[in-house]
């Protein structure tokens, strides 16, 4: 029997595949179902302090190469989140990562405080400073600046004892320096990467951009090489663990990005291609590969590409 368990910031995951933020993450019922289908953990949609409507439709589409979205972080705000999470967390059968977002830096602190007040706390807190789809509204993401990223990290750190993970953007000159700055500022982990771009696609008959927001983050198979490179580079530079996210569509993809340095593997767009079947298919593929290679514990492969 191969052991797929991994430890991330002291939290045990039965397998490393976690649902990434923004996919199927609206309700507790949806989290429970995804765990039942085999996910090792769940990340919620980004939670705002106040209700946030998000963008008009179309907000997403995909093809065989990539997926694009500009949902614009729609959410009913912290009040709804607290009630939904209050019901779900005590009953959870796999670790829950709560993802939070803010327009102003202070809002990150306010939401972290509200989450910290829950009687049963989530396992991890993921801080989204890297969404590329709300630039018109909020300006450049905080993940694009070493000092902004560190400031948000410090603020959230001061408001909660829950381990915090900073979700970084690949759309920067030097993701490694951002990773180092959040580590120094007190982050317990890093999630890399958020979607790439933003990109743009048009319908030529209608002469209109397909996404209502005109631009949107690119995910899916096309960005997998970028994710692997970012995770590889960050792993070399920091000591804190990484949730490796970006275009993972198969069990072999998951193994590759773990060897590049991911402890957990975030999965989003694969749900578009494979639906609920993804989880079991991928974990079966991982188990079989480990068996074939004679590796008993999956955690042994984390960062394997860096070993001389």
């Amino acid at each position: 029997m191969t052991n797929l368990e991994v430890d991330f910031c002291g939290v045990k995951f039965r397998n490393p595949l976690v649902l990434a933020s923004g996919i199927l993450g609206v309700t507790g019922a949806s989290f429970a179902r995804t765990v039942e289908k085999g996910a090792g953990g769940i990340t919620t949609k980004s939670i705002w302090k106040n209700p946030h409507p998000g963008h008009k439709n179309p907000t997403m589409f995909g093809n065989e190469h990539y997926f694009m979205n500009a949902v614009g972080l729609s959410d009913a705000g912290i009040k709804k989140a607290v009630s939904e999470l209050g019901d779900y967390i005590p009953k959870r059968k796999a670790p829950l990562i709560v993802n939070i977002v803010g327009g102003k830096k202070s809002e990150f602190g306010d939401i972290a405080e509200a989450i910290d007040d829950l009687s049963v706390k989530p396992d991890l807190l993921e801080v989204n400073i890297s969404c590329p789809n709300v630039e018109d509204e909020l300006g450049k993401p905080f993940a694009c600046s070493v000092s902004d990223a560190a400031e948000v990290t410090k603020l959230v750190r001061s408001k909660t004892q829950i381990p915090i993970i900073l979700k970084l953007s690949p759309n920067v000159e030097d993701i490694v320096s951002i990773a180092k700055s959040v580590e120094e500022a007190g982050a317990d982990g890093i999630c890399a990467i958020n979607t790439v771009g933003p990109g743009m696609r048009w319908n030529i008959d209608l002469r209109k951009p397909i996404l209502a927001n005109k631009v949107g983050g690119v995910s899916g198979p096309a960005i997998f090489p970028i994710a692997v490179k970012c995770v590889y580079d960050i792993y070399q530079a920091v000591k804190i663990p990484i949730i490796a996210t970006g275009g993972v569509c198969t069990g072999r993809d998951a193994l590759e990005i773990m060897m590049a340095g991911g402890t957990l593997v975030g999965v989003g767009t694969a749900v578009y291609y494979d639906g609920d079947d993804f989880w079991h298919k991928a974990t079966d593929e991982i188990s079989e590969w480990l068996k074939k290679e004679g590796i008993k514990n999956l955690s042994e492969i984390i960062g394997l590409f860096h070993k001389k």
Partner: protein
Amino acid sequence: MTCCSEHQHSINTEPQTFEITDFWEEAKDIRTFVFKGTLGSKPGQFCMLWIPGVDEKPFSIARDYDGEIWLTICKVGPATEKLFDMSKGAKVGMRGPFGHGFTVAKKKKIVLVGGGYGTAPLHFTGKRHAENSSDVTMIIGARSADLLIWVDQCEKSGFRTLVATNDGSRGTKGFTTHILEDLLKKESVDLVQTCGPEKMMKAIAQMCTEKGIECEVSIERYMKCGFGVCGQCVTESGEKMCQTGPCVKAQKALSYSDFGVYHRGPEGQKVEW
């Protein structure tokens, strides 16, 4: 990479361009629009209709054969208002078909119950049943006679068509559920399928389940993507209504604690029916 094993959407969900070739009034603020082409839809499935520059919304498919797609649409907001301003020849985007439609199987006697603009997909459904040599009865309801839709087409297609209006301005005064209840007392029915207000469908689901009659309902939930990614349309069972639904068996629908009670708005908040 393998794809789309269990669910119905194609690997490419970029909207395709369709031209409006015709439209007519069904009732006040309700029009049927005709688009040239096909999505290859089954009755009970839905599509996402993109009004460029405004919004994209889900609509049940009222017909998809003979090279035409029909959508019966009520003017309720900015997207549909813009659509109602469009002329023949105007182009829109469409993608689909999405979701799980109504079962079409060899059954002797089938009753289809439509409430309000929920009636829209039922003629298409009835037509497929009739092709299977099933005996089709339509029960169509609305608040008043001027809001009834698809009644004439159903009659023309040879379906026995029974009408209920809340104010009695046409057909039986009362609800579709009253007509169905009476009918089930007198006749032996093999399958009931319904689309309309959720409270109506819940009453029908309960009625049929008690009598041991096979029944399917079409559950409407707020949809953002339509193909199983956003999680906006998930019921309290955790099932996505854009894939498991919209058409589900009555027993399954009755097991959802939110069925007939509440749905969720654009930001995921609970909204009571």
